């Protein structure tokens, strides 16, 4: 109860500000319409009109909620207008990209920790890869892969992987280096091999770090997928909904796609969090 009150308070403030902004931003169109028709605008008509426009500059919260309801629950999943359908298209690419990015990130981190040349050589490139705007590189990847006859899921997954491998590399390098000198010396007194040190000490030590990066990585993968859906002329996926919404001035559609994406991101992070708790508890590391 103590937690719910502040959360609801903040939510209420946001909704009130949002309604106020919607009335203000959409009022111009209402005034223009009224001027053309030669009628006066009362405060009552101003409010009802600005909150019920078909293509408002800023849709009111209830319009977005109605659109969300209409496109998730009311529509059949197979429909081209179903957000569940588009969400699944985005989610599948996100998960594939997240999987590739995680495996690649862990593999790179293992290499960086165990190989001096990789330590010096790979990390700067990994950092450089993230300084390039994803919006610039995504269309190139899609065009190149398209010319090779690869389209659809794979190019999107690759861009998602491109964004999500980085936090995994950084977190895992730190995690695999978490054991202190004493713990490494202990393994040395047992004359343990590098592989034994890795499986029995480094990898278990890195688990809390891995999960922290997975949470960042899964959200990054979703962003990567949505960005990848923008330039490809795709007609499916949340990114495509955002794009077509902006082509046709369907602001309500844009906002509902945005909320769907946010909900999806939150759900993914929560799933990783639950997985983290289960694994760490099983390992005896959650106290």
């Amino acid at each position: 109860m103590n937690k719910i009150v502040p959360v609801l308070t903040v939510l209420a403030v946001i909704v009130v500000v949002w309604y106020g902004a919607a009335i203000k931003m959409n009022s111009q169109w209402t005034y223009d319409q009224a001027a053309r028709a030669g009628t006066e605008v009362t405060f009552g008509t101003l409010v009802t009109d600005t909150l019920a426009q078909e293509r408002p500059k800023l849709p009111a919260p209830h319009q977005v909620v109605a659109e969300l309801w209409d496109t998730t629950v009311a529509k059949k999943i197979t429909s081209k207008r179903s957000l569940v359908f588009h969400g699944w298209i985005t989610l599948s690419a996100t998960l594939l990209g997240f999987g590739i990015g995680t495996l690649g990130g862990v593999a790179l981190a293992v290499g960086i920790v165990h190989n001096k040349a990789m330590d010096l050589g790979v990390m700067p490139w990994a950092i450089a890869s993230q300084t390039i705007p994803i919006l610039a590189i995504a269309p190139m990847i899609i065009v190149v892969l398209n010319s090779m006859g690869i389209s659809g899921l794979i190019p999107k997954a690759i861009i998602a992987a491109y964004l999500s491998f980085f936090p995994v590399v950084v977190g895992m390098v730190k995690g695999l280096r978490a054991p202190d000198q004493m713990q490494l010396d202990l393994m040395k007194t047992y004359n343990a091999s590098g592989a034994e040190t890795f499986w029995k000490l480094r990898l278990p030590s890195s688990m809390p770090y891995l999960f922290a990066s997975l949470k960042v990585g899964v959200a990054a993968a979703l962003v990567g997928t949505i960005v990848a859906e923008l330039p490809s002329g795709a007609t499916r996926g949340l990114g495509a909904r955002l794009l077509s919404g902006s082509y046709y001035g369907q602001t309500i559609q844009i906002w509902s796609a945005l909320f769907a994406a946010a909900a999806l991101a939150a759900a993914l992070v929560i799933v990783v969090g639950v997985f983290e708790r289960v694994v760490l508890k099983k390992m005896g590391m959650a106290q």
Partner: protein
Amino acid sequence: MKKPVIDAQNVDLTFQTNDGPVHALKDVNLQIDKGEFVSFIGPSGCGKTTFLRCIAGLETPTGGTLTVNGLTPEETRKSRAYGYVFQAAGLYPWRTIAGNIRLPLEIMDFPKPDIPARVEKVLDLVDLKGFGKKYPWQLSGGMQQRASIARALAFDAEILLMDEPFGALDEIVRDKLNEEVLKLWAATNKTIGFVTHSIPEAVYLSTKIVVMSPRPGRITDVIESTLPKERPLEIRDSEEFIKIAHRVREGLRAGHAE
């Protein structure tokens, strides 16, 4: 003549650091026989831990010769002859106490069926029977350190090296563990190297006390204890005990005065 287990002749060790070379050990000569309990005592920076690490093959001397059983420490380390107890227990939080003790046994490829019996045996030795299924964070600091001693004993290392194992514990727990270490030593007859800051601890435990002093780290006195092998805690009030403790203190002071 009996050959010593550990034989150090003019051992020198210089670390190259960014601030120039540091002379950690200079001209260290020491012979340790099988079954001895040797304490190394001295102020910080006297090289007592460094020397213990040299014996364990974790550091390599830059001069002189150091042999263990006639082999280099490196070779002896590879034959897994050392049980090393560090200042902190360093138990793996993701393993139970029994799991931690199993760790060296797994690495050293002990036959699987033998492992549970070995774990039980050493848990019993350190008085932790029944705690095998607990996780480290469920145990007190003293119990954790006992578990780490059990871990070092599990694979029957010939030489037990302990680097200030009780330094972080309070005096009451330390007294109890000192008594237990003596019992352990009597029961297993291992050769033990023990680094400590505490004069009473060194005198109470050892058959031989090595007094060291810093800059450069060197041995200033080697005291053969005349105390009997049976040592109740009360022995620390005996005249003989006080006499030895006095000589250790003198040795430490002499090292400082130079």
